[in-house]
């Protein structure tokens, strides 16, 4: 079976990409999803705050997914749920397996990789101490609580102040648990300020910055205590600062890893900084006709930006199939001082219609500051910001007219205090 486009993963990125490819004229599109239904992680994110950019209203995760799933109903896009993609090859074969049809090899003219990301676990951050029951990643606990109907604990400590951890602090509290503390190793929170306010401050949950879990103890196989210590500037625990928490549950919100086994397997060039594929301005990877979008490329804060980026990928996939082009010379986007990565990493300027949207993150907290875009030694343009933190993704738009002036083979984006 030859499809115009196969989309790997039916979460927010895959849904937006498929919709957009269909709108741009592709008709023979397949979404492959490993869960029982479309929507991905949005199905367990029952809190609101989604869609303010995309739909100009505040939706919950399931409602946001529903909007896109409803759009698909008016299209001929096909969906295979409960199906795992095992391999994607360089020549765009997609090997899938499910209980109904067994192992199948599907072919496509274009492929979109939208597998999302997974959580870092206890093993990834090497917490010392006992290895009892009661230690969960925040996202697994969220799925247990919000979908499967299991309460994971009564007295809870949360390690990591990423958004999922903060959201779970509120959620566990509302469901009757006592959340004793949210502990963050960095001197600033990794989550959005609004979540610090409405998830921690609203419920008087203390946030310990520059602290981490340094020991765990168990009773009868279940977590009974965690030890929390202050850390120095190098994030090493400071002896004598230990606090004991009497708790049965530790939730980990310690970062997300783009899920790129298929991407690596296909031999696509990766970016060590994002742990995702290196992409062009239209989200195309190093294999022509294979695109990537959403959290599998870089971890986003807001699903609205995932949709935006994925619609770009979907449109580009349609263009690849319907109007094949010669590959133009690309300019590299380089992260200068204060910038930890940029997406896209490379740009074919002739392919930009009006603006190039660049997403990036800063390395530290900045007050009044300036984002500078340089072509070699020349400053192309600059942007002012009042406040930036590594937890909040930054976005700038570079107009095509400006990019046409670029003469160097790299464009550098850097940040400095004003």
């Amino acid at each position, binding site marked *: 079976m030859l499809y115009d486009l196969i989309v790997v993963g039916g979460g927010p990125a895959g849904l937006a990409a498929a919709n957009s490819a269909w709108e741009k004229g592709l008709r023979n599109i397949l979404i492959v999803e490993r869960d*029982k*239904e479309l929507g991905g992680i949005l*199905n367990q994110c*029952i*809190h*609101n*705050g989604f869609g*303010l950019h995309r739909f100009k209203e*505040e*939706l*919950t*995760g*399931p*409602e946001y997914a*529903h909007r896109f799933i409803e759009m698909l109903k008016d299209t001929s896009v096909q969906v295979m749920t409960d199906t795992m993609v095992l391999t994607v090859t360089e020549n765009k074969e997609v090997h899938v397996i499910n209980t109904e049809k067994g192992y199948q090899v599907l072919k496509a003219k274009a492929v979109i990789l939208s597998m999302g990301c997974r959580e870092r676990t206890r093993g990834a951050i090497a917490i010392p101490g006992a290895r009892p029951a009661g230690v969960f990643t925040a996202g697994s606990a969220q799925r247990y*609580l*919000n*979908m*499967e*109907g299991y309460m994971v604990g009564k007295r809870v400590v949360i390690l990591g102040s990423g958004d999922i951890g903060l959201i779970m602090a509120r959620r566990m509290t*509302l*469901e*009757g648990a006592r959340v004793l503390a949210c502990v963050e190793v960095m001197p600033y929170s990794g989550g*959005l*300020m*609004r979540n*610090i*306010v*409405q998830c921690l401050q*609203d419920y008087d949950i203390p946030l310990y910055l520059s602290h981490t879990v340094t020991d765990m103890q168990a009773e009868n196989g279940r977590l009974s205590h965690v030890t929390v210590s202050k850390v120095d500037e190098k994030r090493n625990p400071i002896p004598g600062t230990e606090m004991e928490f009497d708790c049965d549950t530790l939730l980990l919100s310690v970062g997300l890893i783009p899920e790129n086994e298929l991407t690596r397997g296909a031999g696509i060039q990766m970016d060590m900084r994002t742990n995702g594929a290196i992409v062009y301005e239209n989200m195309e990877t190093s294999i022509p006709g294979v695109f990537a979008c959403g959290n599998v490329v870089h971890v986003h*804060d*807001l699903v609205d930006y995932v949709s935006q980026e994925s619609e770009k990928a979907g449109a580009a996939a349609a263009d690849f199939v319907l109007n094949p082009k010669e590959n133009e010379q690309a300019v590299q986007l380089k992260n200068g001082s204060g910038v930890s990565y940029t997406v896209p990493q490379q740009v074919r300027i002739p392919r930009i219609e009006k603006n190039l949207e660049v997403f990036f993150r800063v390395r530290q907290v900045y007050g009044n500051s300036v984002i500078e875009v340089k072509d070699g030694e020349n400053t192309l343009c600059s942007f002012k910001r009042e*406040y930036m933190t590594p937890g*909040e993704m930054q976005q700038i738009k570079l107009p095509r007219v400006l990019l046409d002036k670029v003469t160097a083979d790299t464009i550098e984006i850097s940040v400095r205090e004003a």
Partner: protein
Amino acid sequence: MKELVCIVCPKGCRLRVDEENGYLVSGNSCVRGAEYGKNEILNPTRVLTSTVKMEGGLYRRCPVKTNIAVPKGKLFDIMNALNAITLTSPVQVGQVVIENVCGTGADVIATKAL
């Protein structure tokens, strides 16, 4: 003068609310921020999202929310009301689950078709 972080959208504007000057809000970048700043001092409200027990659906819990923001002090009363009910499949997005919950004037509605 009270300083707040606006929670209306993920932007997180840093607001200043002047209590002695008609709760005049500055630092906001939209009208909703101005409204939030004033309300947050006078009568703080939140949209409550949670789940209720579900029978016959793909999952055992159905996500729900209040259709408007409710007073912060009522959140745990509403949680108790939600714990007392069970939904049976099929449920539609937007279907009213509890009308005028705890006398707040807000309806609890389902946020997922199950």
